[in-house]
């Protein structure tokens, strides 16, 4: 290994064997132009020039910069050598740009060969002149410019054999899905994944911001709990020292305790664990729950309005500021743009049943909606009202959990509601029973062991305000907003009955 010392900058540079045969040691200038160097000593990376050199982001490469000599750090997305030239596509998160190394004043034949041989996905530093192009480059995000490279360095080399080809990752849905899932380290690099998860991050942020502005307090609830919150069936058990405990299926109980503790309006963002052996396109065993609970003044519709307003703010925030990401996802997974109404459409359950019956579906007044009927109703609502987001209010009491407040005007129904996006359920919510006596009655009616929920009922014995709420799943909301078809696409590291890694 050769050692070169540049006193001006005080570092040592090592050459790897791979590059040895390609370098002419006689010329320091040539040495400078293309090198592979390794991280060494205290793990810091040293560069053969000023450390405060500015790096331009790929998405900033526009015709305004034409003629400028700039540095860019990006990944080699593709490379193609053609005689005296090598075409590269450099990629940085969602953006990519075409670059060219051509034999000439600044580049030798060896340099062109070197550039062409850099493994795909390697991170490179490139000094280049920005050139305006006459013909739009359709395949890149930066369509009006290309880079003419004068110097190229490999910062971090990728192995020559990748577990999958990234071009395959951006092909429309199909057989590639399973491989994509497994190579999770690479998958999120694709432009589409970058766009999806940036959008998801924004959803979380909009949720927090909107609620905080409405005076909500964010709370953290425990995930290791002593009793299953939604019924014993779909809950994970963990060993807890000498006994066992459960992983929370929802923050329901704790949200309500906070309301009883006079926090008035609370929300929480955290993992939710459901041990449901469902292998569907929209179920995960672990997902991020965005939950809301609030006390209301006169009518539980105040709760519905609060939730729908939050959802609308999220939709607007995405629509107004994240069009780039939405379009990027749309290139690989085309879909109709998400439509919603203001104020949000709210139909009563009985109206929904009537619409379904009109379309030839036979169902009882108090029957729950099956998934196909939910989807069909979504289609009918879309056709009639032109919205992908609506609320179905006043569900039949018989199909709701025991803590749902019954409708005071009609015993068959309840003060509960579901919300749908593109015909799929995203939220199930209700006014909760805040009276310990009524709660006990309803629990007995559902044949629930009162001993198991004693502490839950007790929390309502010391004056609880009337309240209600609901919870949404972050992954499902993102999936439906973007019109994707599998919730695993919006979960960075999805968990389902068959998947525990990465």
């Amino acid at each position, binding site marked *: 290994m050769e050692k070169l010392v540049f006193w001006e900058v005080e570092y040592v540079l090592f050459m790897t064997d791979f590059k040895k045969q390609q370098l002419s040691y006689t010329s320091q200038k040539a040495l400078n132009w293309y090198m592979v160097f390794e991280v060494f000593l205290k793990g810091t990376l040293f560069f053969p020039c000023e450390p405060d050199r500015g790096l331009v982001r790929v998405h900033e490469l526009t015709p305004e910069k034409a003629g400028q000599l700039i540095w860019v750090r990006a990944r080699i997305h593709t490379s193609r050598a053609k005689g005296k030239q090598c075409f590269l596509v450099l990629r940085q998160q969602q953006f990519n740009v075409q670059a060219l190394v051509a034999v000439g004043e600044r580049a030798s034949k060896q340099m062109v060969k070197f550039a062409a041989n850099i493994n795909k996905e390697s991170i490179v530093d490139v000094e280049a002149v920005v050139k305006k192009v006459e013909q739009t480059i359709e395949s890149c995000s930066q369509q009006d410019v290309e880079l003419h490279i004068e110097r190229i360095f490999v910062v971090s080399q990728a192995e020559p054999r990748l577990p999958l080809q990234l071009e395959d990752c951006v092909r429309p849905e199909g057989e590639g899905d399973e491989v994509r899932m497994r190579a999770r380290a690479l998958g999120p690099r694709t432009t589409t994944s970058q766009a999806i998860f940036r959008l998801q991050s924004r959803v979380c942020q909009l949720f927090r911001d909107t609620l905080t502005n409405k005076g909500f307090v964010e709370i953290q609830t425990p995930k290791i709990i002593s009793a299953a919150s939604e019924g014993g069936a779909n809950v994970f058990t963990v060993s807890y020292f000498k006994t066992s405990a459960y992983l929370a299926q929802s923050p329901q109980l704790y949200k309500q305790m906070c309301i009883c503790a006079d926090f008035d309006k609370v929300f929480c963002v955290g993992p939710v664990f459901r041990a449901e052996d469902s292998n569907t396109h929209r179920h995960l065993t672990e997902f991020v729950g965005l939950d809301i609970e609030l006390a209301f003044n006169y009518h539980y519709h105040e709760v519905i309005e609060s939730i729908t307003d939050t959802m609308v703010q999220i939709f607007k925030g995405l629509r107004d500021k994240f069009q780039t990401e939405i379009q990027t996802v749309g290139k690989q997974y085309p879909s109709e743009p998400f439509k919603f109404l203001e104020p949000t459409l709210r139909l009563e359950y009985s109206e929904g049943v009537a619409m379904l019956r009109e379309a030839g579906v036979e169902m009882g007044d108090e029957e729950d909606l099956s998934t196909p009927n939910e989807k*069909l109703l979504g289609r009918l609502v879309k056709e009639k009202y032109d919205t992908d987001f609506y609320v179905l209010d006043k569900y039949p009491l018989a199909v709701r959990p025991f803590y749902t407040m019954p409708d005071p005007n009609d015993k068959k129904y309840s003060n509960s509601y579901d919300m749908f996006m593109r015909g799929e359920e995203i939220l199930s919510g209700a006014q909760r029973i805040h009276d310990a006596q009524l709660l006990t009655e309803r629990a007995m009616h559902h044949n629930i062991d009162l001993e198991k929920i004693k502490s839950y009922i007790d929390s309502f014995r010391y004056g609880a305000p009337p309240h209600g709420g609901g919870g949404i799943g972050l992954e499902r909301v993102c999936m439906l907003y973007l019109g994707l078809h599998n919730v695993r696409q919006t979960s960075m590291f999805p968990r389902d009955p068959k998947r525990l890694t990465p």
Partner: protein
Amino acid sequence: MMALRELTQGDKKVPVLHSNNGPALVGLVTIAAHLAQEAKRPELLGGSAEHKALVQQWLEYRLTKVDGCHKDDIKTILKDLNSYLEDKVYLAGNQFTLADTLMYYGIHHIIVDLAIQEKEKHMNVTRWFDHVQHYTGVRHHLPPVVVLRNRVYTSGHH
């Protein structure tokens, strides 16, 4: 005086019409055609020679392709009918004939079970079916099939 009975031929059951004047008539199409004549409604069997032949063609289709068909054949039947009915109001010619009635009875059990998405996929069959089932005296006791006025599934839907 006429009496309608059932006769077993091999593994199939066929209707037989007994009447006082004349021999017994066997077979759905035979009986239906005879009754059309008796009721002085010859137009139900077609006008010109070509028209009559076309009516017969569809009656034969009903007997050979539709009756006793397998589940896998249903798709083919719907596809055939759908492409045929793209530019036609009635199955045979420009008027209501026995072909329409018997085909309606023949595929009623298929159409009644179709999901809305399927009905929209075979739009022409659905349109023709809705038209026929509204004719007075045709539907009788058969349950009406609901047909929506507007498309609910747009082309790009999953």
